[in-house]
Every structure is written in structure tokens, then in C-alpha cells.
């Protein structure tokens, strides 16, 4: 049985903690700015003071302290957020790919999901988790309690990649289940029928959900670096395999791949969904940072 520490190492958490502030500001930005909160009264609880660093918002300076001590301090609060974030983690067979770099895509996805959950939980957001392949496998409901993180991680640990992907079906059924609007963080390789996927995304968007999409790639999938005759066995279907000389089809593959990525991106953009492409050799933190920076720019 996998341990939680398998997913979330101490060294993974540290950069996350550094990110917290950064993330929080960003989150705040978009949660307060972009979503009309369904709740009234938006409660704020003081946590601590800390010295001003360049880049902090001026308006958050504690002028009282400045008056007393002639120093700039920032007041920090523990916020109660209105955010209900549901992490939807693809546990289909194709996520089980282990590249030549030795990193398993699903492992990476798990870590990414855990990092996000940690980040969100530490901001007192209500985080839920959905794992799926052809259908929904597990659902961990949204909670804000810090102990809830444990449930999330436990669920992730026990999940192993298995069946075919049916993302569109999953999203459609999810749309029925999620009664309250919130943020849906989708972590997948999106190896699914593009049209069905877009239809499902459309349904979610119309219901007012915010979508955050992480598309995971292995470096191998992007560059197709194989040179020897190979038997490509489908991770999702046991019988399905192809025997071919990778060198011969590399260029065509890259072309098809680019089309695939472009189609996904364009379609997602139409639904105002940003696609963050991540490769498994990137550190999670960097990946998150890049995304958050992207969100900030909007």
C-alpha cells in the first residue's frame, strides 16, 4: 500500500509553502475578482504581521504600525474563501505511461494534484477529488478541514491507472453531481474524443463552473525519440498493439501531435478555458508557478 509520503514529500511541500502567499494572492485575485461569491459576509481572520517586501500591494500595508514604528508591515489574514475546488484526476490507462526519463505520468499527476490540494487546503478552500477512467471511480467530497487533505491523499494513493479514458462521459456525469458552482481542476492527458470532450466542457461552463486544465505530457510523447523497431502496446487495451519503425513515422507523428494539441487548445480557448501543458520532467512547483502567473496576467 502506497504511503501518502510517496506522493507528497517534504521537499515537495517546501516550495509549495513558498508559493502559498503568491498563490493566495493570485487565488484571491481570481476568486474575488472573477467569481461572484454566492456567500455573504466574507469573513476575515487576522493571522500575523510580516515585513513589507517589494511587490506587496500598498493597500495591504498596516498604516497603524507604520504610524507607530515608521516601518512597513503587511497584515496577513486567514481567509475564508468561497472556493469549492474539485480536482478531477484522470486515472485511465494512458496515464500509466512511464517515459524514458523514468517518470510515471500518473505519479506526476498525483503529485500535481496533491500539491494543488495542499495549496488549496492551506488556504482553507474546500477541496474535493474525483478519480476516473471510463467512469468515475472515486469521489472525495469537498471539505475545508485540514485533516481532509489526508482523505484526499489516501484516495490518490490507492488509485492506480487502469481502463480506457472516457473524459467526456465523466465530465457530463460530474456536471450532474456538482450542485454548487466552483473550480474544477482537470488533470489529464486528454486522450479522448475531442468533440465529446468539448461538449462536456461546454456543459460545465454553462453551469457556471470555472475550469482549470492541466494537460500532462511525457517528454517521449512530445518528441517521439524512439529509434528501434518497436512494439507499441496500448496501455488501455491489452490486445491492441502496433509494430513499427518509429524513425519512419516520427515526422508524421509530430505533425498529428501538433494538430491534436492545437485543436485542444483552440477549442478550450473558445470555452475560455486555459490549457496548461506540463511535461513530467518539469518540477511541479514551476509548473504551478507558471500557471498561477498566467492566471495573474488575466
Amino acid at each position, binding site marked *: 500500500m502506497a504511503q501518502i509520503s510517496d506522493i507528497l514529500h517534504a521537499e515537495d511541500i517546501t516550495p509549495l509553502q513558498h508559493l502559498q502567499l503568491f498563490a493566495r494572492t493570485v487565488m484571491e485575485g481570481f476568486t474575488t475578482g472573477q467569481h461572484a461569491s454566492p456567500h455573504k459576509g466574507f469573513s476575515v481572520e487576522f493571522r500575523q504581521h510580516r515585513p513589507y517586501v517589494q511587490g506587496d500591494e500598498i493597500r495591504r500595508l498596516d498604516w497603524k504600525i507604520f504610524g507607530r514604528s515608521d516601518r512597513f508591515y503587511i497584515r496577513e489574514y486567514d481567509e475564508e474563501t468561497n472556493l469549492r475546488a474539485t480536482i478531477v484526476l484522470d486515472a485511465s*490507462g494512458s496515464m500509466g505511461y512511464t517515459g524514458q526519463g523514468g517518470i510515471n505520468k500518473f505519479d506526476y499527476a498525483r503529485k500535481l494534484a496533491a500539491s494543488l490540494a495542499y495549496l488549496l487546503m492551506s488556504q482553507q478552500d474546500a477541496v474535493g477529488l474525483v478519480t476516473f477512467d471510463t467512469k468515475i471511480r472515486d469521489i472525495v467530497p469537498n471539505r475545508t478541514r485540514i485533516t481532509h487533505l489526508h482523505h484526499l491523499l489516501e484516495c490518490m494513493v490507492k488509485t492506480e491507472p487502469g481502463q480506457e479514458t472516457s473524459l467526456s462521459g465523466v465530465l457530463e456525469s460530474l456536471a450532474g453531481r456538482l450542485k454548487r458552482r466552483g473550480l474544477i481542476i482537470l488533470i489529464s492527458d486528454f486522450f479522448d474524443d475531442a468533440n465529446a470532450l468539448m461538449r462536456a466542457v461546454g456543459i460545465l461552463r454553462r453551469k457556471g463552473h470555472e475550469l482549470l486544465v492541466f494537460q500532462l505530457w511525457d517528454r517521449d510523447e512530445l518528441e517521439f525519440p524512439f529509434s528501434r523497431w518497436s512494439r507499441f502496446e496500448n496501455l488501455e487495451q491489452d490486445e491492441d498493439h502496433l509494430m513499427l519503425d518509429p524513425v519512419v513515422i516520427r515526422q*508524421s507523428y509530430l505533425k498529428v501531435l501538433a494538430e491534436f494539441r492545437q485543436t485542444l487548445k483552440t477549442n478550450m480557448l473558445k470555452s475560455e478555458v486555459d490549457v496548461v501543458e506540463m511535461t513530467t520532467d518539469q518540477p511541479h512547483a514551476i509548473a504551478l508557478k507558471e500557471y498561477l502567473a498566467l492566471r495573474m496576467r488575466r
Partner: protein
Amino acid sequence: MTFLNSILLAGAAAFLIPLIIHLLNRRRIAVVRWGAMHLLQEVIKQKKRRVRVEQWLLLLMRILLPIILAMCLARPVLTALRSLPGFGKTSLVVILDDSFSMRAPSSGGSPMDQAKAAIQRMTEELPRGSDVQIVLAGGSPRTLMEQSSIALDLVPKALGDTQALAGPMSANDAFQAAAAALSKATNGAREIVVMSDFQQADWKAFAEGASLPALESVLKQEPKPAITFYRLDNDITENLSIASLELSALVAAEGQPVGARVRVKNHGKRLWQDVALYLEADGTRLRTTRITVPAEGEVTLSLTHAFDKVGDHALGVRLEGDSLTEDNAAQAIVHVRHQINALIIDGHPGNEPLSGAADFIELALSPNMATAADSKDLVITTKVDERRFRDEDLRGKEVVILADVERLQGKRFTDIEKFVKEGGGLLVIAGPDIDQSWYNRDFYRNGQGVYPAAIKGLGSVGPADNPARILMQRFTHPAMTYFNDARGGRLQDAEFRTWITWEMKGDEVKTLFSLDRGAPVFIEKPFGRGRVIAGATSANSEWTNLPLQMVFVPLIQRLVSHLATQGAGEAALLVGQPVRVGLKDGKGDEVFELTDPTGKTTEVKARKENNGVVVESAPTREPGLYEMKAKDSSEAQRFAINLNPAESDLKPLAESEVEKIATRHEGMLVRSFDAYQRLDRSRRHGTEMWQAFLIALLVLLFGEVLLAQRIARA
């Protein structure tokens, strides 16, 4: 397609390298557990078939590259195209020496066997549409096939039975035959290959500079044929042979001893001691003589034997063998008769002994009777005065001798003509009494009469001049061959002061021998079924001292027995000569059977020739005893065929000398089939194909690079 450098062809095995790489690549397949399968499937859907075709094409190119490179380096010579009509066709004439010396056993097979094998390979290598003729050059050259054959595989078959038993090769005649064969050739490329052991006896003269006019004229032909001298080796240096077997008489009486003179020759450098020599009569061994033959020397023996039965008998000698056995035996036929009856018509009888015109002849023909000795004479003579001659005198006679007869009048003249026409022999000896105008007008009758030639006049030398003598040369007339050896008698001692000269017309008249002044002494002509010999000088001592010489006895005896044995054939013939029988009263439709030494019987048809009928077989091909008989008769006539003794000296011409002959005639000398093949290819240099292969190689290289790039880019 053949290759000049075929060893390099092995490099073609390098084609295995790309193939092995390809197979290993396929074998050592990496298994990738892959997620983005739908992308791959999309790609495959688009280009699966094309990719597969291109892959195979690329593999094929890579396999072909080393193969073509190897072929290019191996210098291919195109022979496939030669098989197309009109491409590279050659008219090949092989002059094959089938003389007996080609039979000498040798470690690599006899020269003849080597030649046959080489000819077989030559014909295999020739382009389709080529034609081949083989001139068998031993003895009198003849072609193997009636005309050049384009059925190349039949040529070695036709050659199959040919045995090397013929007489010496006459190079010039052979080239003449080759030229005749080539003159009918239709192909542009022509070639003459001379295959011989280049025996000194046959070729030395040419090495020393004698010209080969037939070859020179062949070389003037257009298109000029390529000449190749193909020298075949034998490794025999020692050889003993019977150089000759001469009989003292062609015809003998029962019980009359016949002398046989045997010459045994040692052609090697080794002394042969105590060699057994057997005398055989009709195949039965009579006695054995031990002889010692010095190195490169010869031994002559005289043996005698008397046959006691009338008929044709074979007298033979045989040597205990060296390794080349065929030339260790020789045979001759002796015709044994009860007696020969000769009528001598004396035109000028003398009163004293030996003063008459015919006295010497009478004495020479029946020496035993004249001396009242016990021995038997073969010829029984009856002498009549010309004036008392009556037709009944001719009864039972085989030969009539006219000695210095002035003329024959009326019935006596027609009786003589009738006698000869019916197969009798006539010997006409001149003398001072003959009436020249009668001889020319009635006896010669412009060629219609029995006398062989018109008399022009008398030839003579003055008393102070040197007398005329007999021109000594190699005699070919069967009655004269005995005198080729000096031991047969010294013809050259005879002196001639006066003789008649003839004006000879027609091919029928043959000269037996001549004087050193050029005038013939004896001439012969067939007349009807008989024969006439005319002598130019007197049979007594008036014009010549010939009758006083010892040699006169065998000379007259041989002439008479020759005339008496019409169609009886000669004592022995050489391989290559036909067996020939004249028929006394044939119609021309008789069928004869010829049994050769192996017992095989062939049919021979009689044919009309001149005024008579002859039966002549095809040229004989092997030595031994032949028998000819009419199909429905039991009476056979026998013939002895011997090998030509000149062929027994196996010494070949030095290679440098053969080279000299070849160079002088723009020919090339080769010693093996491989060398011939190389030469042949260098002559056909124009059809070398490496350039084409190089171009193909470059094209293929470019193709491979382009295809590989295209596949990588796709």
C-alpha cells in the same frame, strides 16, 4: 554473363549485412507500453501502406548496393546479350590436329582428349547464333561436318568418335580447308583456332620460316579472322615404333619366300634392349626376334616367310610395347598366286644370248628357270617372235610385254587392245625399231588407243656428255615404293643415252619415275579394265645400261606383278586412305561389304569411274586389316592399313617457336582453356559491362540517400 575477376564476386555476400541489420532490428524489438495510441493509429492510418512499400524498397536498395559493387569490381563480361540474335555471333573454325601423335597418353588425358574437352567448353561459351566448323587436319584435311553448324551442342557430339589416328598434319592444307569453311561464314566475327601438339615433324619447317600461304590469304580476308594457336601438351618422350614394313614382292607364288624388311625406330633418349619383335602371318605369331634399339637410332631387320596357300595373306610385325602401342605394329598384304603367266613379244629377236630385245626381260622375270635353280618363279614367261604371234598365245596370260615391236598389224593389234580392255596388263618397252608414226596414229590414236602418250621424238645425250640418270626422289607409285629405300637396289646407277619423249595429255597418265633431264622413263595409263605401262628406253643395252643393273630384276618383276594384280590393291595403305577395289566386269550397281579391324561392317556401293567400275570406301580411320567382299560372295579381298610412321616422333616444337609462328601470322598462343578464355574475353573487350554497373551503382546510391531522407522526412 561471365566475370574476369570472379573472386571479387564473393564480395556480393556483403548484401547480407543490411539484411542482417534489418532482421536483427526487427528481431530486437523494443516493447513500448504506450498511451498516446490514438495518435499513432492516426499516423498509421494515413501512411501505413506507403511506408511499408518504401521500407521494402529501401531494404532492397541496400541489399543491391554491395551486390552491384561486387559485380562491378568483378569486371562482368556480358554474354547474355551475345545470345540475342546478331550480337557477338562468331564463326569459329577449329583446325583440330587428329594426327596420331595427338594420341600420346599424358597425365591430363591425351592431347586429343584435352582438345575435345576444350572444344566442348568453347562451344558452350559461344553466343547463340554462332556457327562452328571443325577441320580435322591429320592426313588430308577434311571437315567434321558437311557445313558449319549453329547447333553448338551437336558439335562435341559429332566430335565424339573422332580418334587421333591420322597421318601428319599439313598445316597449309588445313588452313586452306579452314578458309573454305570461313568463306561461307555469315557472322562478322571470325575466328580460327589451331589445336595441335605442334609436333616437330609437322611444324618445324614453319618455325624455320617456311610460309603458310593459305593462312596468309585468310588474313587478307575481310573481316579478318582472329587466329589462335592452342598448344596441347603430352609428357611422353620415349617412343618405339615400326618405321616401315616393306615386302620384297607384292605377289608371290605358293611357297615362294617373301622378304619383309622392318625398320624399328627409337624416338627417345633411352636405349631399348631386348625388345621382342614378333613376326605374324594372318594374325598368328610365327617367331620372335629380340632386338636392341639405340637411343634416337633405328634397327633394320629382314625377315622372310613363305605362304603355302593361294589368296591374300597378311604379314605383320609387332613390337613388345612401350606406352604408345598403336605404332608398334605394321602389316602388309601378300597376294599369293599359283603363278603369273606373261607373254613376251620380241620385236627384234637376237641370234646370240642376251642380244634380243626381250632377253633381259625374260631373264629378269624367271631367273630360277633360266638358271635351272630349284626355287620357284612366280612369273612364267612365254616368248614369241613378233612375226609369229597369234591370238591363242594370249590365252591364259595376265601380262603381255612388247619389247621393241615395230608395229602390230590388223587382227594382232585389235587382239592386244581387247586383251587390255578386258583386264590384262600390257608393258610396252621402246627400242630403236619402233615405228613412231604407227605408234602415234594407231597405237595412241589421240588418246583413244591403248598406248598412254604420243611420242614426240627421241631424246639423247652426246657421247662426250654425262649420261642421263634416274631422278631420285620419293616414289609414290605402288610398284616403285620398294625403291625408296636404297637397300631395294641402286636405280641411280643406271645410265641413259637415248630415250623417247612423250607428249602426255590427261590426268589418267601417271609417271612412275623420270630422268634427271625431266623426261619420264615409265608412264602408266588405265585402259578399259586393264593397265598399260610404257617405257621410254630399251630393254636391252642399246640405249641404256639399266638392264645390266641388279635393280633391273626387282624393277621388272614389280612392274609385271603390278600389272598382273589389277585391283589387287597395294601391300599396305596408310590411315586416311580409302580402300579401293577395281571391278573387272562390274555394272556399277554392285554392293560391297567392308569389314573394319573392329569387326564392324559397312556397305560400300560400286560406282563407275572413267571406263571402269570401282568400289571405294570412305577414308579409313584406324589401322589394321580390312576385308572387302561383294555382298553375296564369300571371296574377300584384304587390305592392310598402317599408321603413318612420321607421327611416331612425338617431339613437340619448343613453345617459343610456336610463339614465333603465331606472332608471324598475327595469332596468339595459348596453352590452356583458361588462357584461351582470357584471350577470348580480351578480344571481346567491348562487351565488358563494369561501366554500366558503376552507373547503376551510383544511381542506386543516390536513390538510397533520397529515399532514406524522404522516409525520415515523411
